[in-house]
């Protein structure tokens, strides 16, 4: 019986984890002095988010990316940080979804879609965006971490909390001068 309980306790979170929002397919590519990332946010669009979009309220996600230098005996050192925001606004009169993408407050993309599915894809996918610009090559093993801020919730209608996905971490890599690589 105890084994059954343990099995339930072990399996249930795994099952729940599959249905929770998460960053998938994180890929990085170095191009000159830039590090470009691609990833996808999955399981982020529930009925509440869809209704919010359909109501015309600006709705979106904030992706936080950070470049860390790995340290064996201590916490990793965050070398650079970047924020990518994808916000959708629905116009019920024209039946169009405007999706704006900003990086660190700067508009980098703005597209109009006539279907919610396309708008969701545009909001949840980041493709080959240069998130880090390197003035000097950091030494050591590096890694890129990404997570999404899904919005805020209120505990007991009183205590505000920000809902994040877990950090998605890339494979560690080293930067070598004059070489473009793709992983």
């Amino acid at each position, binding site marked *: 019986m105890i084994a059954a309980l343990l099995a339930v306790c072990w399996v249930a979170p795994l099952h729940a984890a599959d249905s929770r929002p998460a960053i998938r397919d994180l890929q990085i590519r170095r191009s000159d002095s830039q590090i470009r990332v691609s990833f996808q946010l999955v399981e982020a669009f529930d009925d*509440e988010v869809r*209704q*919010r979009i*359909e*109501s*015309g*309220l*600006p709705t*979106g996600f904030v992706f936080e990316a950070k470049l860390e230098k790995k340290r064996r005996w201590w916490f990793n050192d965050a070398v650079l940080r970047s924020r990518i*925001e994808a*916000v959708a*606004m629905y116009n*019920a*009169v*024209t*039946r*169009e979804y405007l999706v*704006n993408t*900003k990086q660190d*407050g700067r508009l980098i993309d703005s*597209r*109009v*879609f*006539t279907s919610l599915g396309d708008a969701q894809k545009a909001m949840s996918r980041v493709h080959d965006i240069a998130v880090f610009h390197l003035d000097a090559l950091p030494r050591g093993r590096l890694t890129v971490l990404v997570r999404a801020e899904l919005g*805020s919730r*209120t505990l007991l*209608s*009183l*205590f*505000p909390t920000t809902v994040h996905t877990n950090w998605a971490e890339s494979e560690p890599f080293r930067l070598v001068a004059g070489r473009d690589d793709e992983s």
Partner: protein
Amino acid sequence: MKVPSSVRQRLRDNRVLFWVLTAALLFITATYYVVLQGRDLDRDVVNNRVLLFFLRNVDAVLILALLFVLVRNLVKLWLERRQRVLGSKFKTKLVATYVLLALLPVLLLFAYANGLVQGSLDRLFRIPEDSLLEPGNRVAQALTTELQDRHRLDARLVLETIAGIDLADPNQRPALSRVLERQRAALGADLLAVYEDTEFVHALLDPASGVARLPELSQTLLLETLREGVAQQVHALPGRAERWIVAAVASPPANGARRTVVVAGSVLGAELARDTQSLVEAYQAQRQVLVQESDFRAASVLLLLMITLVILLTTIWVGLVLARRVTVPIGALAEGTRRIMSGDLDHRVEAPADDELGVLVDSFNRMTDDLQQNRAEIERSQGDLLVSNRQLDAERRLMGAVLQNVAAGVVSVDQDGTVLTCNSVALDMLGLEPQGLIGKGLVSAVEETALRGLFAGALAAPSTTRDEVRFTVDGDWKTFEVKSTPMLTEDAGVVGRVIVIEDLTELIQAQKLATWNEAARRVAHEIKNPLTPIKLSAERLLRKYRANDPSLGSALETAVGTIVREVDNMKAMVDEFARFARMPQPRPTGVDLRRLVDETVHLYRDIKPGLEVSASLEAAGDGHASLDPEQIRGALINLLDNAVEATQAPGQIRVSAQRLDNHLRIRVADTGPGIPADARDKLFMPYFSTKGRGTGLGLAIVHRIVSDHHGTIRVEDNVPHGAVFTIELPQ
């Protein structure tokens, strides 16, 4: 009200803390607002989020402040109770009462108000069944959908119609235009446009549509059409209310050839466009509200909570302040009482209170002032008393030394006759030991009968008495003068008597010796005086006899007469001496003093012309007295003889008798020249005379009679002139 500096400092600190927290909160809120402004968020959304953020933080600060105030005061109370601080129990009850009184109604009010607000929000977010917003939106959307469906069919029909026309050939453009014109007229569309892929080929616009220019169809529409085969779009005209409703259909892809895209559309009139837009926007606004329901509810709860917390914090804080205003003076009073009890009269209660407690504190401090002044006065009095005691002790020692060194015996007794003090001389005179006299009755302690009677009489007398007594001490006769004087105090009157016993034995002996010397001198003188005439008479007779003087006979007769007369004088003088020497002891009998005095005075009524001799006996009572009448009469006669002889006419001699408490007083007053002061001491001695003649025994006999009656005699000046002899006889 005087506010202590510590309280003022705390208020300043609280104000500073309040403003720092407020500034920090506003700064954080403004920062949050700026961050949200950077996102593509609706203005209302930003404001709503900022408001929620602000309310949450305010509530958090208020909750923390409330918890801090409560916990801090509870901990302080707990510590005070543990340390048994005076007034802590009262303060605990007061604070608990205030907190409960503040908590219960405020929480109930919060619960009730929250219920009301949530009910209102329920009604707000509940879409009424007869709401027209959703049907209106459906109608508006259906209109657009229907137009788009129709234009999609139109576009497909046109696409089929122009399938045989080579769009790339410019020569066939007129044919294309004719076909499109026919189709537009047949279909009633306002717009027909043809594209090859995304490249514009031709378009036809109905002039009656009211729109002068072709719509700028977006690449998005064309690309979606090429991707999906069909697409629709609602295109708003810049600056105008009308909208294009368009649908696009693309020919199927065929071996990489360019595909034909036909777009058909119509203009939605301005009025209809505005109406449908209003319907859609109203429905969207409702949906936005519904989507933000949780935020609205949270904001309402937070707002209510903030108000509740502000009220709660204010009431509890005010309650605590009020409790402190009550308990601090009470605690200070209790501490003051403890300090005063321990003797610290310099302590003063300093408590900020301007009500009845302030009056109590002032009264307490005034009471302490009075206590301090009284203590100072007591200490000063104690000092004075100590000095007085030392002075009294010194005086007592001096007095003791004086008493121990005076020649007289001094005994002090209280009103009951109990001996208080006694010097050694008195003990020697009385033949007693100290323990045999101090604290005992004076009369009972003395064994000598005569002395006992004398003491009894002296103690019973109301005024000063002076008596002489003789008794044997160690076989020798001694004469003592006993003078008893009342001890008077200013406040208590007579508190006892001081008895001075003086040994007169040697003095009397000396006086007797002197008296006898004087007597011998006077006797010799008196004897010598008659001898001279006798001698002269004898010598004269001898001369006449030798001379055969014929007058011998007459001379003999004269001489014999002189001799006989002088001898008679000498005999009379000798008789007088004999009588003085043989004076018997008095034999007291019951006598009518008034009669005795009156009869005696009667003998002198007409003795000298111009001399008035009278008696005053009204004060003699019934006149009964116990005395020797012959001796007293003799004494009166002696005094009256002297008075008559001394008083020249016109003059007065007045004799009075008076009965006092326990003795008789007889006064003989004349208006003569009086007694010289230097003669008064020797006036009652035998053979002393101021007249230069007589035996000088008259007043000595009077003094002897009075003394034998245990009485006293004294002489004083009469007013305006003369002398007064006063005899006092105990009865």
